[in-house]
């Protein structure tokens, strides 16, 4: 095919250039800093090769934070989808279109709220003595319960806030997707005596497979950026039970010791790991979709 116009180049080159500068400069800088031994309190630094990276693998807190990040990723992505899909089906099946639209607007409010504000509101709601969210638990058990200070419940409690924001939004997206589906295949399934859940499990959801997978990817990327939420609600605590990689990197860089080279090396590792993981996942999913 012959290119008849230069328009594609005219449109893409400036954007790509801006993107390259915005993404490339910090990335190169991060790699550069990661190879030195820079500290905030000391203007002099020298190149130390991969010493920071080697140190990371004998740092128990780093290994813990890797595990916490993986856990956070799994919990929030699975829980968000587990809330969003049934909620969307329920709204689609049981509620009149008018009410459904009103609910959709309502369900978008949490995600419109700035994350830091949402985190503060929820942190107060979980306060063992004054919190509204834990009040029923207090009535049942007769004791105040400090969910955010208990290592067994802290992560799940923070995840609730994340799911509250994204699960509800995704439910709205899925409802809208369901509304766009052609009726015929669903009706055909019903004529074949399929039960309601079977209609959704075997007909509607497979039809939405591509869209749902995109949503999962969006959520996976979004979950990686949960720093603000975790920072406000637990600061990585109790102890280090909710300390994700970005929390630990920030903590090393700015809160505790000012070791920005060490923090940068974590950021670089995280970037490599996520790029590799996402590429593999993306390929797998595409192969699976084509199959």
């Amino acid at each position, binding site marked *: 095919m012959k290119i008849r116009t230069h328009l594609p180049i005219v449109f893409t080159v400036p954007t790509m250039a801006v993107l390259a500068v915005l993404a490339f400069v910090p990335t190169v800088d991060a790699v550069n800093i990661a190879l030195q031994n820079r500290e905030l309190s000391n203007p002099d630094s020298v190149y130390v090769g991969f010493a920071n990276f080697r140190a990371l693998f004998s740092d128990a807190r780093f290994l813990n934070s890797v595990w916490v990040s993986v856990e956070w990723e799994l919990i929030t992505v699975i829980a968000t989808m587990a809330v969003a899909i049934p909620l969307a089906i329920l709204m689609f099946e049981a509620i009149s279109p008018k009410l459904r639209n009103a609910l959709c607007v309502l369900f978008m409010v949490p995600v419109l709220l700035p994350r830091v504000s949402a985190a503060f509101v929820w942190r107060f709601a979980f306060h*063992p003595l004054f919190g509204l969210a834990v009040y029923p638990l207090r009535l049942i058990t007769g004791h105040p319960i400090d969910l955010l200070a208990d290592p067994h419940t802290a992560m799940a409690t923070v995840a609730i806030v994340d799911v509250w924001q994204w699960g509800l939004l995704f439910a709205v997206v899925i409802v809208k997707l369901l509304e766009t589906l052609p009726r015929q295949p669903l009706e055909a399934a019903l004529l074949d005596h399929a039960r309601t859940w079977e209609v959704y499990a075997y007909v509607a959801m497979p039809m939405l497979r591509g869209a749902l997978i995109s949503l999962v990817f969006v959520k996976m990327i979004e979950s990686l950026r949960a720093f603000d939420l975790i920072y406000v609600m637990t600061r990585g605590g109790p102890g280090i039970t909710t300390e994700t990689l970005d929390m630990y990197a920030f903590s090393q860089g700015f809160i505790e*010791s000012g070791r920005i080279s060490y923090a940068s090396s974590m950021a670089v590792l995280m970037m490599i790991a996520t790029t590799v993981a996402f590429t593999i996942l993306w390929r797998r999913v595409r192969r699976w979709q084509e199959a």
Partner: protein
Amino acid sequence: MRLRAALAATVGGALALAAGLAGAANAEAICTHDLRVLAQPRDGLTLLEKYKDEFKKLSGASFDIDYLNENDRRAKSRADASTVGKYNVYYIDEANVALFAKSKWIVPLLDYYPKEYDYADFDPGRQKVATFEDKVYFAPLTGGGDLLVYRKDLLDKAGIPVPKTLDEMIAAVKKLNDPDHGVYGIALRGQRGSGANVWRWMPYFRGFGGKWFDGDTPVFDGEPAVKATQVYLDLFKYSPPGTKTGSWDESTGAFLSGQVALLVESTPLAGEAIDPKVSKVVGKVGYAPPPTPLTGGGYAHGLAIAAKGNKDDAAKKCAGLFIAWATSKENEKRRLDDGEFGELNRTSIMTSDEFNQKFGADLGQALAATAKVTAVNFWQDPEWPNLGDHWGIELEELVTGTRTDIKGALDELNTYAKTLVANRK
């Protein structure tokens, strides 16, 4: 019209005289740009913002204060000072003055502090905290030591005398703890941080004879630290929920809302306890020095001149004038009139009749008694926040139960301390 002008001039002149300001200060504008101040929330600073016009008249420019809570303020000021230097004035505290001074992120204050503002009038303990290697770096906004603050009504009802020793205090805490009726024995701080949980833990550590370093060798990893941690963890059984990951706000909040029988906390709590705006226990509170052998945690926070944010001498002078004005006798007097006990730092104010009338003689006595046991509990070194915060995380793990081996945690800290010392260049 002329009469009004004359009146204004007289009043203005009288004010200037009373304020002890040099005429020269008024003659020319010292500041050319509005100052940017990074601070943590303080009633005294909020009050100060009402008098922006006064500062503008004095200096020729105004000021803007950005507020962040303590941990965030420390992180942000450190990041700002070491990189872009956007702020002219930093809020500094006992824990990071050594780091900021050593890194040359702030400059010695008295070079730019107008003499007529009388720096020597500040409480000597706070002056000591503001000094690093014989140079003064900040003018105090708050400071003090610890007080045992207790509920007179609860102690009387249980027939318990005011605890004078730690053993008596522990016994009282156990006896007064009654969560079913909404009263907890004590309130402690569990949240990580050299100025949070570690701050409350240190009086036990130092009280039991602990020391941080002997020269460059860490010596804290011994019996006093283990015992201090054990006692601290045992007492946590009687501390209200929310304090395990809480700090000053959570523990004093629980006390002020009437849920705690007694606690050892920093002196500003005494002022809050008698302020009906924040306290539900007004009239029920007594004060005493911390029970022996606890040492009071001497501290001070204040304002310092940023090195990077003030490029030339004129800018530093402007920042110095702001700090002097903000901590002046007149502004302290305003805080006293407003009942802000925790914001008072000048000897002339704290020994005034007005102070006694406002806060009562008991508090004055308790303050005098606690001054005798007030000590510098932390390691006075630029690396202190680093070491203190590291211990803060381990202590939070111990408090919340994700770690149980006290000695193991201290050994780990010891290894960390050795690398800190070894990394010094």
